[in-house]
């Protein structure tokens, strides 16, 4: 289990990183909004991007304003990372939305940069993992973001199965899936207080 001290040590090791690779990210991503410190979008304190555009349009969606593909605003990856670098206490980044996999390419680049800085990556999606794996065969962006995601929270929001008990999911059909060691650590982090729940 990754306890506070290890996490803290990691945070302290993470320094604003101005390497060349980051500077070359000449791309942009379309966001509905951005939250610098959130406690409700995954374990630990998180930097959150709410992407714009969503094909699922689940009834009862918490963020219906993110559905339109043309809404929101374009942000450069450099600018997002420069904000992220100021949040030294954030454990990692969360991609929410919207449907993040519509913009897998640029988000994967951000995810990679976050990984280089020692953070972890959580991605919400309205697709099931199995469907994403299929789509990934045709779509480099999807496959790149899947490869950079540590913890995937998948599945559409189903109003009839709305749940308030499980951390970080909206309905009970949604799953928390660890795709890497870091993802498993994030799950353990959620579970460590289960004995009291």
């Amino acid at each position: 289990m990754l306890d506070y001290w290890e996490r803290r040590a990691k945070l302290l090791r993470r320094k604003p990183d101005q390497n060349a690779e980051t500077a070359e990210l000449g791309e942009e991503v379309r966001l509905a909004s951005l939250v610098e410190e959130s406690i409700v979008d995954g374990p630990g304190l998180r930097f959150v991007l709410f992407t714009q555009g969503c094909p699922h349009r689940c009834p009862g969606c918490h963020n219906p304003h993110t559905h339109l593909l043309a809404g929101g605003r374009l942000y450069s990856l450099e600018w997002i990372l420069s904000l992220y670098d100021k949040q030294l206490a954030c454990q990692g980044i969360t991609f929410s939305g919207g449907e993040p996999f519509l913009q897998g390419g640029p988000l994967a680049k951000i995810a990679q940069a976050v990984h280089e800085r020692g953070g972890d990556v959580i991605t919400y999606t309205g697709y099931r993992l199995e469907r994403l794996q299929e789509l990934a065969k045709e779509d480099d962006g999807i496959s790149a973001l899947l490869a950079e995601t540590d913890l995937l929270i998948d599945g559409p929001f189903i109003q009839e199965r709305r749940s308030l008990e499980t951390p970080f999911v909206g309905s009970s059909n949604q799953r928390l899936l660890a795709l890497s060691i870091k993802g498993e650590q994030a799950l353990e982090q959620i579970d460590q207080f289960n004995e009291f729940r």
Partner: protein
Amino acid sequence: MKMFTTIVESPKQIVKRDGTLVPFDYFKIRQAIAKANANVPSETLSDEELDRLTAEVVSHLDVNSNPGVEDIQDIVELTLMENGSSQTAKVYILYRAERAKVRKQKNALMETFKRLSFTEASATDMKRENANIDGNTAMGMMLKYGSEASKSFIDHYVLPEDMAKAHAQGDIHIHDKDFYLLTETCCQIDLQSLFRGGFSTGHGFLREPQSIESYAALACIALQANQNEMHGGQSIPNFENVMAEGVQKTCRKHLRDLLEESQLFGDNGLGEEELERLLTFDYEDLVASLAKRGNEATERREHALLELVQKRVQRSTYQAMQSFIHNLNTMHSRAGAQVPFTSINYGTGTSHAARLVMRELLRATEDGLGNGETPIFPVQIFKVKDGINSKAGDPNYDLFKQAIHVSARRLFPNFSFLDAPFNLQYYRADDDNTEVAYMGCRTRVMGNIYDPNREVTKGRGNLSFTSINLPRLGIEARGSIDTFFSLLDKRMDLVFRQLRHRFEIQKRKLVLNYPFLMGQGIWLDSNTLERNEEIERVLRHGTLSIGFIGLAETLVALTGKHHGESEASQELGLQIVSHMRKRCDERAREEELNYTLLATPAEGLSGRFVKLDQERYGVMENITNHEYYTNSFHIPVYYKVSAYEKIALEAPYHTLTNAGHITYIELDGDPSMNLSVFEDLILYMKDAGIGYGSINHPLDRDPKCGYTGVIGTSCPQCGRKESKQEPFERIRRITGYLVGTLERFNDAKRAEVGERVKHA
């Protein structure tokens, strides 16, 4: 005195202001003129001239009627002016005006009573559902009458004029002024020595408690009895260790009962020797014995029996903790007008019994009151200590985690940090009297210049405190730092004198004025005093504190930026507060009295100062334009700053404010699903050198379906919309205490809650 030379006819009687008739007295008029003239060296009147003037005044009076006091005074004024004594007339007029003002202030008390009586009553009619608000009850109103009358008496007859004036115009605020002549603020109660051999509340004697249930019940009674003798809060500094003694007694009792029962229903298979041995067991032996497991038939039987005892002890302890919390939220003090302000500190006890107490207390807190409501009292403070509970592998780390879990759901416990250097310097392992304990509101008492051998927690508290309106000094300095410091020094001198003035009154009280606090030996060393003895010698263990409010606004006034916005301002802020601390330390050494510096909890005060300053200086951006001044050294609530930055910026002030301090973090959202963030923040507070802190988050509850968490306009669980008839309950924290609904906040505090920016 020479006889007067001119004799004129005078009225027989005059009418006093209250309408009564008294004999006319020539000398009174002469004396008034003489008094006024005594202050005017340039116009000195001889005795003859005084007589002549007095006679002239009298000659203007109608001898056949009874003139009023005011009529006579009007004539005195005119006579003086007509006779070329214009300066004397001026002094006379000023004196008259001054007296008129004082009289008016005395009448103001009756006006206050009127306002209290009639506005409150109509408010009650308007919203009957809130009729249980204290101020609207008979006893609550009686308390207010008493309080207002006392304040008026203190202002006009007790306080030296400069101090009364400084308070009235908002230079300083003398807290609990209505109790000026009566008592002290607060106390950390040592229940262990109180319980030993039993005690008396002044109304009846109670035997030494013999079970965890009685320990919990008597703890409430002790808190209540002491609350009725002091004007501040009451606290238990080592709750788990006190209650652990009750657990041991309950364990022996359950063990004895069960052995008896099992024998009654047949042979329990235990030999004489085993029985003898088991009957000596306390809870520690029981847990140790349960950890081993033998395979013999008797060992298995013994094991089963002990398990049953443990279950019963656990159940008794839960019941005891549950009723403790219920009692403290329902019992009354002060003529039934309020619930006692109570706090408990715990976290470091590592005996099995102490750990059981904490586990069950936290469970009972989480379960809430009868309908699942969040308990408002006691304020719970979990002491975090390295090596005991802050890290995996520490004996009480599980309890720390449970405390985090409960705090995320119920806002309590708060957390105090024994490893902060200013707390650690007193700490010795295995002596809970060396662990700094806080009062819920933040008061801290530990150092002791009067008796350096008694730098302990138990039996001590604050005697009184007075706060300085720091922003006003910032405004009046007009940008000059030097001017600011010289104004600050003058203001501090005034407060030092005022605290001492109050102490001089307090110290003359006798033990018999405090039948519980002193009569039962609660206050440190009070058991060495006789019933009729003055209490000065033991009172000196307490603290006299200077508080401050609005460092942020002060810095804006001085530099244009507060300490969250600019490093230079932070430096200046630290310089100001360090200076204040240095002056307190110096004064403490000089007078051998514990003068300490307090980060004032600002209830009531936050709005009063700013209102007065708005009237004086107008609305100034980020100084007087909010409805409140920022709490002590806090970063303004409206300013967006990350949780970690806020902790880092406020931590150094904790070191300086030895009379107490607290740092809050506001979380946006329900943290109960993300407890690792909560833990990170608490441990970061510890690392940063915070002494006492807590995390605020929205805590709403739907009384219909019982859902507790964050509720917007409709309940996430049952989906119903909020209505006027059935509103959601919204609990928030004010000056360390939880308040049930926003309605009971004063206006300024309500505005402050509205402007709070979430830090994460």
